[in-house]
């Protein structure tokens, strides 16, 4: 008679938890395994690219060169080499600037995109007048405009915010608008038949149902904001990783260039994965349908 109670008390509680834990561990292990595999494939592709195209060793840096550049190189005045610590200091300093610039553009673009799409939803006239233009302007080649923007906004943080903001704004606007407009008509009809104000409908019905689109724009704007920041640094401020790309034409320090590319890419992937994980966590709770089909 005691055994069943024991089972009920202990195992019913513990078994599922253990099962969940082992399933989770398995998932993490397989995810880590495939990440490792991806890293290996990338390294092989990278090396293969250099060998296949017969790129001069001065320009082409293979994974080992980048490793040496960042971690093991000793200072050598005769060969004009900095120590690895010195290299790292420069790289991380630039990366920090780029991250700051990217965050500025990211926040500016998303906030503006959200605000404008809310205005568009509330004011039909405004939407009908400006949404078609926004769709066309989305195709704007921003490199083309960046130099012009520096003429107007100077070469400071304001310009960084404007360039980064533009890069992030249009995708955000168009995505969020799309989400805001896909609210089921029945829900809207219900709200209007109860005499709920437009603003409250927006807050309680339209915005929540646009959650998948809002998260999608949060995610896809991560790489976009990095590109915006690099662009702004390259063409406007002359600081950060974006500027490294420019100076390499004069200094021929290709180790720095390749290392910077690796660093920026890694940071972007990490940020993208974080946003993506938050997205999956939130959507699986509030909009599970929206997760289907995504690779």
């Amino acid at each position: 008679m005691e055994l069943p109670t024991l089972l009920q008390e202990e195992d019913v509680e513990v078994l599922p938890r253990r099962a969940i834990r082992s399933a989770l561990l398995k998932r993490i292990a397989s995810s880590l395994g495939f990440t490792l595999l991806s890293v290996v494939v990338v390294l092989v592709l990278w090396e293969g690219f250099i060998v296949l195209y017969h790129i001069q060793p001065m320009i082409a840096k293979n994974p080992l060169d980048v490793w040496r550049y960042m971690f093991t190189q000793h200072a050598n005045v005769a060969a004009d080499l900095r120590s690895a610590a010195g290299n790292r200091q420069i790289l991380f300093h630039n990366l920090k600037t780029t991250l700051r610039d990217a965050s500025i553009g990211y926040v500016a673009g998303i906030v503006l995109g959200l605000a404008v799409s809310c205005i568009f939803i509330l004011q039909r006239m405004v939407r009908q007048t400006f949404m078609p233009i926004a769709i066309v302007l989305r195709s704007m080649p921003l490199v083309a405009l960046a130099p012009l923007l520096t003429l107007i906004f100077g070469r400071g943080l304001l310009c960084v915010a404007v360039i980064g903001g533009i890069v992030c704004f249009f995708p955000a606007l168009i995505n969020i608008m799309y989400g805001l407009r896909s609210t089921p008509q029945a829900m809207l009809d219900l709200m209007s038949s109860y005499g709920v104000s437009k603003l409250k409908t927006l807050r309680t019905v339209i915005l929540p149902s646009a959650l998948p689109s809002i998260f999608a724009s949060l995610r896809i704007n991560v790489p976009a904001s990095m590109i915006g920041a690099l662009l702004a640094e390259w063409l406007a401020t002359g600081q950060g990783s974006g500027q490294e790309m420019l100076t390499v034409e004069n200094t021929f320090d290709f180790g720095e260039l390749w290392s910077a590319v690796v660093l920026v890419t890694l940071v972007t992937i990490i940020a993208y994965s974080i946003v993506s994980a938050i997205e999956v966590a939130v959507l699986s709770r509030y909009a599970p349908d929206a997760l289907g089909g995504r690779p």
Partner: protein
Amino acid sequence: MSTEVEALGLDAPSRKVGAQARPDGVPPWLGGTIGAILLALVWEVLALTVFHKVGSGVPTPTSVVTQFWSDLRSGLYGPNFIQTMKEAATGFVDGNVLAIVLGIAFVQLPLIEKALLRIAVASYCLPIIAIGPILTFVLHGDAPQSALAGLVVFFPTLVGVCVGLRSADRNSLDLIRAYGGSSWIQLTRVRLRAALPSTFAGLQIAAPSAILGAIIGEYLGAANTGLGVMMIDAEGALDIARTWGIALVCTAVAGILYGLIGLIGRLVAPWAPRKGMT
């Protein structure tokens, strides 16, 4: 930038439920025209008042149009335009073909997806501006520009294809399975057709991106002709009206291609729900 298709993909299930085009008073072309005229007017006024000082970057729309017209007649645009389009088209085709093939492989063979998905995401996270100089040193002729265009185009189309292939009707797939059909038959009979709308959404976004990629490639300095080169020259000569003209031409061409591919998509897959955007 390049990649709203992911959101379109994310919305695919809800699109079936809700987002039918709602009756709107004004057709988009009319609203857009009014908006464009308004914008040009505001721009003209601002350029003449607030920004009216030497060296500021804002010419009036009228001066931009005048400059554009005279440049067009003197044949400045022709060869540069063709060059950029050639690069963009090569990148567009290469990047998209690769994306479509890989997308099909991803859906048919999940192991490939597991192995390569992270690399695809990494390609999307590569800073194109940063690898531009490397490509410029490595490849020759039009290749760096086309490579950049292809790179920008690749990931959004891949996502579009995958989402589309997976959005295939469950019942049809089950039916084929029940009659002993292979996953290959599922692909050719059901999935490919189902993938059309979201693939075209990807291609639509890819067109402006390809042009942008080509221009960035030209801007990074390998090319002798092209709209990007023309822009560098115009800026060097402090010819601001011409620079704005080129920027607007790029935007217009990108917008036209975007619309055109959307139109083709609608003809190829007329059953797809409209996006109800305006």
